[in-house]
């Protein structure tokens, strides 16, 4: 398919500009290696002092709400668990990984704030519904729009044209539709391709690739639906509204999947909780992102 080829080529073009942190890659390898132990993971973490400091900060923050204090990497790895450490390492390094992809269209702090809102809300919803792994959807939420950064960096003229179309439309044209009109593909597809080339878990690929097309999810329909809802709630948190009319519509199939309706009480609870958490989480997950590389 021609579109697909274009997407693959586009993502190949950023190879070398976006690199996952060394510590994440190492942790990832160790966890997949049946012969490795928790101690090996802890050792890999310890070799990156700045990551170690940030990991301990997150471990002791309200993010996990752990009662005992975590003062060593060994303890962090055993209490949090290697699976969650892997998600965490990816989440903590993703913002700085994209420093090599600056753009003039959106300020990085604004971009990551939306992503982080989506992550936090996906996590809250996962806990409420009990159907998805909260840590996995947190990471998926944080990464859901990364294709946007590739498009903004590689195809700035077309990306701007898409943004202008959204502003020109009274009919609430969503950005992914505008991208399809201008480019023939959208940021969800680009993000999924990036994650595929990085060999990240299929759950992430599906959530990123289908957060605007939940009907096409194959193996992780619940996670995809959750990130879809979280993305819209994130828009509400961002512009500080509780009125669903103010943002893009939520695909009703997403609610059905969790046996819920678009209940206004749920919206209020979740949006308010996310708004309370965001300030601290920005420090934990985004602060190290080099904002200077953003437009200005």
């Amino acid at each position, binding site marked *: 398919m021609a579109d697909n080829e274009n997407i693959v080529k586009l993502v190949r073009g950023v190879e070398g500009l976006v690199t996952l942190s060394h510590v994440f890659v190492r942790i990832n390898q160790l966890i997949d290696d049946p012969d490795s132990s928790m101690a090996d993971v802890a050792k890999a973490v310890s070799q990156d002092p700045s990551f170690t400091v940030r990991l301990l900060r997150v471990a002791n923050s309200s993010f996990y709400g752990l009662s005992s204090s975590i003062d060593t990497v060994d303890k962090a790895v055993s209490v949090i668990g290697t699976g969650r450490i892997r998600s965490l390492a990816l989440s903590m390094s993703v913002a700085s990984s994209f420093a090599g992809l600056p753009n003039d269209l*959106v300020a990085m702090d*604004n971009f990551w704030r939306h992503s982080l809102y989506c992550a936090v809300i996906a996590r809250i919803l996962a806990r409420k519904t009990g159907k998805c792994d909260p840590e996995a959807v947190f990471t998926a939420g944080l990464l859901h729009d990364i294709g946007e950064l590739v498009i903004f960096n590689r195809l700035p003229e077309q990306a701007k044209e898409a943004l202008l179309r959204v502003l*020109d439309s*009274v*009919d609430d044209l969503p950005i992914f539709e505008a991208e399809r009109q201008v480019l023939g593909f959208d940021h969800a597809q680009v993000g999924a391709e990036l994650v595929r080339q990085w060999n990240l878990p299929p759950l992430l690929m599906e959530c990123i690739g289908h957060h605007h097309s939940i009907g096409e999810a194959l193996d992780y329909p619940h996670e995809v639906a959750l990130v879809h809802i979280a993305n819209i709630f994130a828009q509400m948190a961002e512009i500080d509204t509780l009125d669903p009319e103010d943002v893009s519509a939520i695909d009703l199939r997403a609610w059905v999947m969790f046996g819920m309706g678009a209940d206004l009480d749920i919206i209020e609870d979740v949006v308010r909780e996310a708004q309370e958490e965001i300030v601290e989480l920005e420090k934990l997950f985004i602060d190290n992102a080099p904002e200077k590389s953003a437009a200005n």
Partner: protein
Amino acid sequence: MRPKNLRPINTSMAIPTIPRPPLVLPGFEHVRRNWNQTYESYAARLLPGEYYVTIHDEGVYTTLGSCISACIRDRVSGVGGMNHFMLPASADADGWKSTSLSAATRYGNFAMEHLINVILKNGGQRQNLEVKLFGGGRILANMTDIGMRNITFARDYLATEGLRVTAEDVGDIYPRMVVYFPATGKVRVKRLRSLHNNVIVEEETRYLSAIESKPVGGDIELF
């Protein structure tokens, strides 16, 4: 060969009927209008520095960063419209302050007067006018609050003219999309995501440098 006589039938079935746009008042032919499915109506798209008045049931819409839009209508006859402007910002710096401040104000006066005069010229009555005010957001944290300057100007102007503001959504940190229907006075204001900040700022900056490079004085048409 395909029978040619079938084509007209096919076309009429495929394309939903969109009515013709209502007649445009003289002077507004350049404003782009398009059909909007949501409102089943035409709507005129204003760019910074433009304004639009209509006597028909159609919409006017725009996106605002730190710019401001006054929506004004005669609530009896329904004639009305919208402007979109900001004050030239060169004022605050130095000894020229008083001069450039009055120049800036003069620019704002033009923007308001044009809108009101065209409404009155098309049958609006001053005592029937109702005003709604939108915009003036502070969408870049590191900028001086030029949005507030625009809000203050518009409020002062309207107070001086004795025109009542019946609704407003101004200030704060969000860009906005405003859709206004002068015939009914109905308005929809939507906050826009920060994803759109830079594009809006760029558009407004281009407009600002255009108005600042033009001499202000006499009867120069600033729109």
